[in-house]
């Protein structure tokens, strides 16, 4: 009985969630599809984005993402591994880092934007550039990656650590070959959430990768991210709504694509290595 009730509640929860989300997605689809066309994807924006397309913006977004993930994923995995497997959990340093990370997860993106502006654009002389934007994003998503990876590692049964140690295996090998692959569900979750956060970010990018909607020629060019474009179209451009929806749809398609590949990659690289019963 209780199982039934609980199951019903779960169903209800899932349904509510699904309904709300369907509304959102349907909204974006219905309003976005008319704006979407091959031309929209392959041309430059005109009249403040009200007309034309989003090609340079897609390119900038992709580059920013590549920089952000390229920096954050190794750092994040490394940091998490250190925290979970090497750090002395009683030590002061550990709790300071832990606290710092949790704090950072709650820092508003505008603060990250101002920080990125001061540090990357100013102090490191990178100026408004895709690099600055990507690095700032990397800082933002690091806490997500670290937290989730760490949680995953914390849940791996100790048995295999013992088995590995007893075989005289390097901790490194054990971590790479067994612990990380076994933690794949958590790491994948962290990865997807990070990608989501990075593609959705606006405020931090306005100050770092900037507003230029030209096609970027290198990583040191300024480039407008899709989220910034959408923000601008809906906040500042009268009559930009249609294009905003079109861009939102493009963004969502990109996210789905990336998630799909990320899922696939993590399956191939990580989960397929471990065989669960």
């Amino acid at each position, binding site marked *: 009985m209780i199982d039934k009730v609980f199951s019903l509640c779960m169903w209800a929860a899932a349904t509510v969630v699904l309904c709300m989300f369907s509304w959102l997605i349907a909204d974006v689809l219905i309003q976005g599809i008319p704006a979407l066309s091959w031309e929209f994807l392959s041309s430059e924006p005109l009249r403040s984005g009200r007309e034309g397309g989003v090609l340079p913006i897609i390119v900038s977004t992709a580059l920013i993402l590549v920089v952000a993930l390229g920096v954050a994923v190794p750092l994040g995995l490394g940091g998490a591994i250190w925290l979970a497997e090497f750090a002395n959990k009683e030590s002061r340093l550990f709790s300071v880092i832990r606290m710092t990370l949790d704090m950072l997860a709650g820092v508003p993106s505008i603060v990250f934007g101002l920080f990125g502006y001061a540090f990357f654009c100013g102090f490191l002389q990178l100026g408004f550039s895709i690099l600055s934007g990507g690095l700032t994003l990397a800082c933002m998503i690091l806490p997500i990656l670290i937290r989730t990876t760490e949680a995953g590692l914390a849940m791996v049964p100790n048995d295999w650590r013992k088995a590995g140690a007893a*075989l005289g295996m390097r901790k490194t090998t054990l971590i790479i070959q067994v612990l990380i692959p076994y933690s794949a569900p958590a790491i994948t979750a962290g990865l997807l959430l990070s990608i989501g956060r990075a593609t959705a970010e606006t405020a931090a990018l306005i100050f770092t990768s900037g507003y230029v909607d030209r096609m970027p020629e290198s990583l040191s060019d300024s480039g407008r991210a899709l989220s910034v474009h959408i923000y601008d179209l809906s906040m500042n451009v009268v009559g930009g709504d249609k294009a905003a929806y079109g861009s939102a749809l493009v963004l969502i398609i990109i996210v789905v694509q990336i998630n799909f590949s990320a899922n696939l990659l993590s399956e191939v690289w990580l989960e397929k290595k471990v065989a669960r019963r």
Partner: protein
Amino acid sequence: MNKPRPFEGKTYTLGSIEKGEHCCEAVPHFSIRDLSVSYHGEVVLSDVSLDVYKGCITALIGPSGCGKSSFLSVLNRLSDLIPGEHVSGNITFEGQDILTNNIDVRALRTNIGMIFQKPNPFPLSIYKNLLLPLKEHGVRDKKIQAEKIQQALESVGLWDEVKGRLDSSALALSGGQQQRLCIARALILEPSVLLMDEPCSALDPISSGIVEDMIQKLAGKYTIIIVTHNLAQARRIANYAAFFWMQESVGQLIEFGRCQPLFDSPQNSLTAAYVSGAKG
């Protein structure tokens, strides 16, 4: 002093052994003195002193919870990994104190193979379970790897059962198959010491026989410490036996000696009761 100290004053090195295919000289491989183990401050094993002889098979027997597994975990410093475990005392292995901080733990553990009480194959394929330690210790040649893996699986009688599905998950094996896989995994590195925590507990008589034969073949070359609840087995294969017992919920070593005398004419009344009274 309430607890008995079985070896107080007198030597407990018992001279050359009588059983076992190979004749072992009584050269201590491990010298354990005053070893105590506690978890979160609760002592579970206290004041154990004994010598484990090179090339001999030493059986640890005793009731559940008396500290046999804890004892083994100290010998290869696996105790480091168990939160709350604290070890005191002195252990010399091949002339080296292994309870100090500055020994090469990895080399020590490579030298000492361990088989756990609960089989714990990695969540990888059967093949990878054996490949991982091989690669780790520098065997890069694919052909040699395949050979060694086949050999190891054959030596535990698993080859025929799994040769067709080496790439499937080790976790999908039956209990006994997992147990044997873990034995193969420990053997593949050819350590000089084997710590076996009830290696035959989940095994049917045939597999158990195979493992026993293997152990006896290894004796002489390997020093083997085996925890077993099967007293008949201990009697069959071991050169030495150590009997642990719990007194006031603290594990202690009651009697240690050559296997046959310990079983046939135990010095301690507890030992006598255990080896005779209990149902084998």
